[in-house]
Every structure is written in C-alpha cells, then in structure tokens.
C-alpha cells in the first residue's frame, strides 16, 4: 500500500478511493460548503440558474459577515439576496446580525468543523479549518455553487510541504509569528497549489486559536490548504462543544513531501510584515526605524478570538492608547464578545481608549468600521497588507500579532511588547 499524507487520505476517503496521488484530479463528496455576503450572491445565481437544486441543505451554510451590519444600500441588497434564498429554501445554517460572527471563527466555535472533514468555502481563508485535521480550501463562487448543487467538488490532489517547528515558544510569540516566519521564509507563492502541513513539538503545544491563525494564513503563501493533525488539544476543544463522531486521520510516517522545512521556536521572535506583502517580514528586534501609526486593529478571522483579546487586555491594562491613534477591537463572534465582556476585557479596552465593535470582517478588507486615509499607517492583526487592503491605495499596513498591535497602539509606533510590559 502506498503511503499518503493526511491531505491525500482525506481526499481519497471523500472520493471513495483507497489511494490518490498528487496531481491526480478527483471528484469528491464535500461535507460542508459555505459562502458569505460578498460571494453568496454569485453562488446563489449559479444554483438558481441550475433550477435551484441543493444536494443537501444540512451541508451548506450562509454567513453574512463581511459588510454587516449592512454598511450601505448595495451591501444591504446583497444580504437580502442571501436572506431570501435562505428563507425560500429553509436553510438552517444561517446567522442574522446579532448572532453572526466571522465565518472562520463562527463555524469551529459552533461545532461545524470536525477532523477528517472535506470543506469548501467561497472565501480564501477557508483554509483556517485545517487546524482541526480537516481538509479545507477556499474556492470561487461558481465552484461553491457547484458544491451546493451537486454535493461534490473537483480537486487536483496537492503535493505537500511539511513545516516542523520544535522547541519552546517565546513570550509574546504565537501562531501568528510562526506563520509569518514561514511566509517570510518561503514567499507569497512559496506553497502555490500545495498543501502546507504543520507539525512538531511547538505545534503540539499550540492552543486551537493559534492553530487556526496558522492555517488561516496558508493562503498567503499560495497554499491550497493548511493542516494540523488532530490531537489531545483538538479532542478537548471538541469535547467542550459536545462533538463526537469523527475520524482522526494522520500522515503515514514515510509519506511523500516535496519539501520539508524545520524551525526552532526558541529562535522566533514577534514578526512584523511590512507593506505591501505578507512575505516582507522582520523580527521585531530587527526594526531599527520608528514606524509611527495612525490606526491599530485587533480582530479578523486571523486574530479575533478570545485568546487574542486576552493578550491585548494584558498589554492594555492600565495603559492608554497614544494621542491621535485609533485602536479598533472587534471580537470575531458573539460568543467571544460575551466571553470578553464577562471577563472584564471590555472595561480594560474602553479605559485604554479603544473602540469595540460588533463582530464583522469590516476593516480587514477595507470594508467599513475603520478605513484608512491617504498616507496613513496601520498595524493590524489581520492577514493581508496589500496595496489598498484597508482603505486608501496610498495607505500602509503592517501585520503583527495581537500583543505587538496592542503595545504599538499604546506607544504610537510599532514596538516590542516587552517595552510596554516591563
């Protein structure tokens, strides 16, 4: 029997095959397909043009998270298309403003993601869900429309690259820094079309939130998916949500990888990605110049989870946001929002002078809730620092972890958290 990686195994299982090899094209059964308010209108058109067939209503989800609460008339109309479709077809997995959160935080939290699943989403950050040992990949609206209608999708089985991170993680370093370090090493197309598999003792010690952050940014290296085998940490996360009934798949020991990279966690410090590519990374101690900021953003599908907010609070406690700096904090889901409120994090944020918003993708993609003006500089926990990503095409975005962003908001410039928390 030929050896397979975890990604090959999941694809083989869903194509009802014993073995699939990289490069092979397969048609596979999809366990979950979803879309958001930007991508759903085109998905819905695809499905309706086919006569409105939905293969399995329980295996699709619609999540209005990007421009909600509706930011303008056009966005409201896009959400209405979505809502009408949901009502018409009596689709269960839909969340209205007040209950909706950012799709890649909401779906795991609500127990939709399990190890071994095959997941497609009309959003490039769908790769987040690989953190659970699932195969999850972003696709366009037509492909997701195809999955809605047929319950299937076609895949080119990807080659895999293995990233081994061993050693002890430093203080103020998280999954964000691991993935930025990797992207800085291999480049924004370093994993083009490929599966990125993360393992090693430092990954085993990472909490689920950080694992999601890592898999979330696989797409920023061009990866088809990011994946981490399920372990005790995963099982405990699922147990807390009363989820059982799943199969844990693991890579064979001598499975084929096109490349293997090894990192020592103890050598990784907080990373900052400079404009305008996520690969332009520097360790925080390598930054010699003063980078003054106008805005700091903590949130998004990358770093808007409860552990991110706790880290931000640790830094912001008894500190104030610098003059003329806006700090925007957006919990990714309602559950995270409630938890942060219960733990008193909002008091700390408000005392520090931050803005707290209801869950939305909002400023990450220059949608709403914090758009940048010409020549402004932002430091953000989100995933992309492309030209114009957060507003004006003449603005500048630096990517970092929540500790660096919170500390920078206090200092008014990009700074190592150790300089704020002495």
């Amino acid at each position, binding site marked *: 029997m030929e050896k397979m990686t975890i990604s090959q195994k999941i694809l083989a299982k869903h194509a009802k095959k014993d073995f699939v090899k990289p490069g092979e094209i397969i048609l596979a059964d999809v366990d979950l397909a979803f879309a958001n308010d930007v991508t759903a209108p085109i998905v819905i058109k695809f499905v309706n043009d086919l006569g409105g067939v939905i293969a399995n209503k329980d295996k699709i989800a619609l999540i209005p998270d990007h421009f909600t609460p509706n930011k*303008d008339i056009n966005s409201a109309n896009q959400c209405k298309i979505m809502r009408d479709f949901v009502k018409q077809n009596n689709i269960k997995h839909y969340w209205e403003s007040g209950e909706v959160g950012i799709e890649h935080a909401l779906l795991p939290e609500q127990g939709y993601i399990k190890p071994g699943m095959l997941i497609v989403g009309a959003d490039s950050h769908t790769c987040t869900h690989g953190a659970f040992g699932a195969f999850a990949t972003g696709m*366009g609206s037509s492909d997701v429309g195809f999955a809605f209608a047929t319950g299937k999708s076609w895949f080119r089985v990807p080659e895999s690259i293995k990233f081994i991170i061993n050693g002890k993680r430093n203080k103020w370093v998280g999954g964000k820094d691991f993935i930025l370090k990797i992207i800085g090493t291999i480049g924004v197309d370093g994993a083009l079309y490929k599966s990125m598999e993360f393992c090693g003792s430092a990954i085993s010690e990472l909490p689920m939130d950080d694992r999601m952050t890592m898999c979330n940014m696989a797409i920023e290296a*061009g990866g088809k998916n990011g994946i981490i085998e399920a372990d005790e940490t995963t099982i405990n996360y699922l147990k807390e949500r009363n989820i059982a009934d799943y199969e844990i798949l693991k890579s064979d020991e001598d499975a084929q990888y096109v490349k293997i990279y090894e990192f020592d966690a103890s050598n990784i410090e907080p990373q900052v990605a400079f404009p305008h590519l996520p690969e332009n990374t520097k360790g925080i101690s390598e930054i010699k110049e003063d980078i003054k900021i106008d805005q700091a953003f903590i949130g998004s599908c990358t770093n808007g989870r409860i552990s991110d907010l706790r880290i931000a609070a640790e830094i912001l406690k008894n500190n104030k946001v610098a003059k003329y700096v806006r700090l925007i904090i957006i919990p990714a889901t309602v559950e995270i929002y409630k938890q942060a409120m219960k733990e008193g994090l909002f008091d700390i944020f408000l005392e520090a002078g931050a803005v707290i918003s209801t869950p939305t993708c909002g400023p990450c993609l*220059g949608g709403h809730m914090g758009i940048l003006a010409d020549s402004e500089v932002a430091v953000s926990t989100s995933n992309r620092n492309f030209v114009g*990503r957060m507003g004006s*095409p003449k603005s500048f975005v630096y990517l970092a972890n929540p500790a660096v962003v919170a500390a920078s908001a206090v200092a008014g410039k990009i700074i190592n958290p150790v300089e704020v928390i002495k």
Partner: protein
Amino acid sequence: MIVAKVWKFGDNIDTDLIIPARYLNTSDEAELAKHCMEDADPDFVKKAQKGDCIVAGFNFGSGSSREHAPIAIKAAGISCVIAKSFARIFYRNAFNIGLTILELPETDKISEGDTLEIDTKTGKIFNKTKNETYQATAIPEFMQELIESGGLFNYAKKMIQKGA
C-alpha cells in the same frame, strides 16, 4: 485566435489590485468592469481597448477568492491574461467564468504595447512586434474537458440530470 495589444504588470498582482473590496458591494459585471485594475493603474480602464490582453509576472490573482476579479477583467473587455504563474483560486475562477488565461514562463520578453497573436487552443503565442514565438504551458486535461463540455455550469447540469 486572439490578436491583442499588451498591458504589462509585475509580480503578485493580487485580487485587491484587480478589484478592491470597496467595490464588492455588488456583483454587477458592468459596475465591476469600471474599477478593473484600479489600484494597480488608476487609468487602466480608460486606456485599455476591447480585446487587449494583460501580461504579468508570478502569482497573478493572489489573495481573495472573489470571482469578481476575473469577472471585472472579462467585463472590461480584456481578451486574455498571460502570466508566469497564477494563484490557485484565481486560476479556477477564470476557467469557471470563461476568462482565457495562459501560463507562460517567458513573460519578461513581452513589452507593453506589443501585439500578440494567441492561439488559445495550442497555447502558441506569436509576438508580432518582436517577431518571437512562445509556447504557453498546456492546460490540464481535465480543465480542457471542462471547457469542452461548456464550463462548470454545464458540467453541473449534466451531473444533476444523470442524478449523480
């Protein structure tokens, strides 16, 4: 056969450059076309003529899954995109909406303003301006079949009719 004038772009032309998110509050093709490549070249839509092509470097279409990106390019009248490589989701999306794309490692040899004769079937590209011929990477067999069966939509239609 496409005959097209070239507009040249660099590496990593991401989907935010192709169609910024501030215009994603609609999926109307004509509206998206108005802002095609706006943050890479604000005058692109004014300058480009119907039938022109885009030639770029590595990783064209990186970033978001927005199908609005190839839709904006197609609706702006661009006949074809030739790049050293394409980001994965953009690659699928372009096929799915019927925008012709070709992978060509030698795009550095092509200059802005050159006229290309592109045989989309064979991937043969003749640069009339420079009198050079290039061979684009063959389109994967399965994607050829997909095109021949009338695209993903018709493929889905057949599957549903068969009750697969």
